[in-house]
């Protein structure tokens, strides 16, 4: 080959695409200045709302890594969020407030646990994989419920946010930026990983696992590594969630939350790197505004907003095959000299 690199070797979903890149850049820029806008409007509430959105986005980025790129439909990823939250709450209840220890504990427990769960679950595929991941999540959920010394079903209050060197996480804006940076880091890492030789094989296991195996790729190793990595991202999201809410509860691992994470990934655009952020913004904004919207029109049915949410999810699955972000126009081929993706 000559010095020039091919222009669009990558599949459409992760190609460089001007409309998508522009959208992603605008969203990131808005997120970066959001606390200033909020303080100008004197509604600091939006900062904590946006923090929650970003934490969901982070968990969804983790899930997207195996769901969007590896084709592994895990209906149990909320269990790693649960794990991360307790990795903060339990040490904190013993007076250990160091965020470094919290993260180390979350990762240190998550890796062996996810390795074990993943190794068993990956013996299956398709629907059985969906169900076995659900089953593992249910196990962990009931495990947390039975943690009698740590609040059981009532959950565990965290006295104060983790201490993280010079960072003062008790300040909501600081916490927000810490979460934002984590999200951007996760986006960058997953982008790099997807384009890497590892990512090429991972995406091949989604597209045609039989072929990848016949070529000589030990796909189990790739899938398991991706599964563990995605679990770790969710566990970090759990650490942040416990810091935001100052609380850990078995409810963080409920199977409906795992379902919501899938909704976020698909809503954003399966297999796009930035999709989960868009999906999280849309879903949580919808959950936030639907009751208000109904209240304005049919106040008697305000508490029934989930009816509309259910229909919305149904139609997203039926009609929006590539998700909101994934549906943005793909690039014109051959315009760029180096393949990139937003």
């Amino acid at each position, binding site marked *: 080959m000559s010095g020039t690199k091919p222009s669009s070797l990558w599949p*459409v979903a992760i190609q460089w695409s001007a409309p998508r890149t522009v959208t992603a850049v605008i969203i990131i820029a808005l997120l970066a200045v959001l606390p200033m806008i909020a303080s100008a409007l004197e509604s600091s509430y939006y900062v904590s709302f946006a923090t929650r959105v970003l934490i969901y986005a982070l968990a969804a980025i983790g899930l997207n890594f195996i769901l969007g790129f590896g084709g592994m439909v895990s209906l149990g990823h909320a269990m790693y969020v649960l794990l991360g939250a307790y990795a903060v709450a339990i040490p904190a209840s013993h007076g250990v407030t160091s965020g470094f220890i919290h993260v180390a504990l979350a990762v240190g427990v998550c890796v062996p646990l996810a390795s074990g769960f993943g190794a068993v679950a990956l013996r299956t595929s398709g629907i059985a994989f969906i169900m076995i991941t659900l089953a593992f999540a249910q196990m962990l959920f009931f495990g947390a419920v039975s943690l009698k010394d740590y609040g059981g079903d009532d959950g565990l209050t965290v006295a104060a946010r983790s201490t993280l060197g010079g960072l003062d996480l008790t300040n909501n804006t600081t916490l927000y930026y810490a979460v934002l940076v984590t999200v951007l880091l996760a986006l960058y890492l997953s982008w790099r990983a997807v384009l890497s030789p590892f990512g090429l094989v991972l995406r091949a296991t989604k597209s045609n696992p*039989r072929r990848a*195996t*016949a*070529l000589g790729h030990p796909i189990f190793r790739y899938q398991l590594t991706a599964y563990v990595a995605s679990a770790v991202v969710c566990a970090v999201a759990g650490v942040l969630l416990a810091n935001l809410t100052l609380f850990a509860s078995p409810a963080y691992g409920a199977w409906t939350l795992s379902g919501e994470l899938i909704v976020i990934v698909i809503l954003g655009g399966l297999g796009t790197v930035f999709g989960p952020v868009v999906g999280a913004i849309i879903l949580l904004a919808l959950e936030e505004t639907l009751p208000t919207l109904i209240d304005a029109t049919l106040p008697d049915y305000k508490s029934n907003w989930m009816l509309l949410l259910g229909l919305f999810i149904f139609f997203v699955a039926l009609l929006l095959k590539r998700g909101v972000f994934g549906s943005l126009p793909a690039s014109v*081929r051959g315009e760029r000299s180096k393949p990139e993706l937003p």
Partner: protein
Amino acid sequence: MSALVTHALVKRFGGVLATDHVSLTVEPGELHAIIGPNGAGKSTLIGQLAGEIASDEGSVRVLGVDVSRMPTHQRAQLGLARTYQVTQLAKEFTALDNVLLAVNARAAHNFRFWGNAHDDDAAMQKAATALAIVGMSHLHHAEVGTLAHGEQRQLEIAMALATEPKLLLLDEPLAGMSQGESAAIISLLKSLKGRYPILLVEHDMEAVFALADRVSVLVYGRIIATDTPDRIRENAEVRAAYLGDEA
């Protein structure tokens, strides 16, 4: 040392003997063809050799190594490459990415999370070469799902070659091809002959008799004859069991 030796290979599905004590060899540089009527068990046999179907009895040796209990990907790493009767490609990938995937299967350190896969110039060069061999240099960027059937078959072969194989298993590479496409593949196979040991399963008699050094006839999972093309053509049993039907 033979490239491939099978000894009394058996596969049963329920009560049916799909592969009935098959013993065959592929010698270095040899093109050994397997023919047989539909349902003779050709694809099952290929599956057993590649490791996708577990054999019930018997053994398989590739380049002297007993691979009978080896999983598919390890057999591939020994140098066993295959194509499929029904194309098995990463449909969302570009043609070049498919071949790159094959090249990387042989790379010692493919388990890398950093670096752009397309920045590996050596690998990209190998992939481009493999595509050039099958005459697809102009289709680097084409999404595989959009390629014509014949091009997809060619791509299968390019991927097999890109793994730097020591033994090729080709499962009906001419299936479903137009005459023009067939001719291109046949000339490609001719150019490969002698450079790789090849086990070719094929329906197209003309092609088989033109290409093969030896031909085995598989009927109901059993090899009823193995010989040179000329002798097979004259074998009475083969004619009765197989060619008679075809004629």
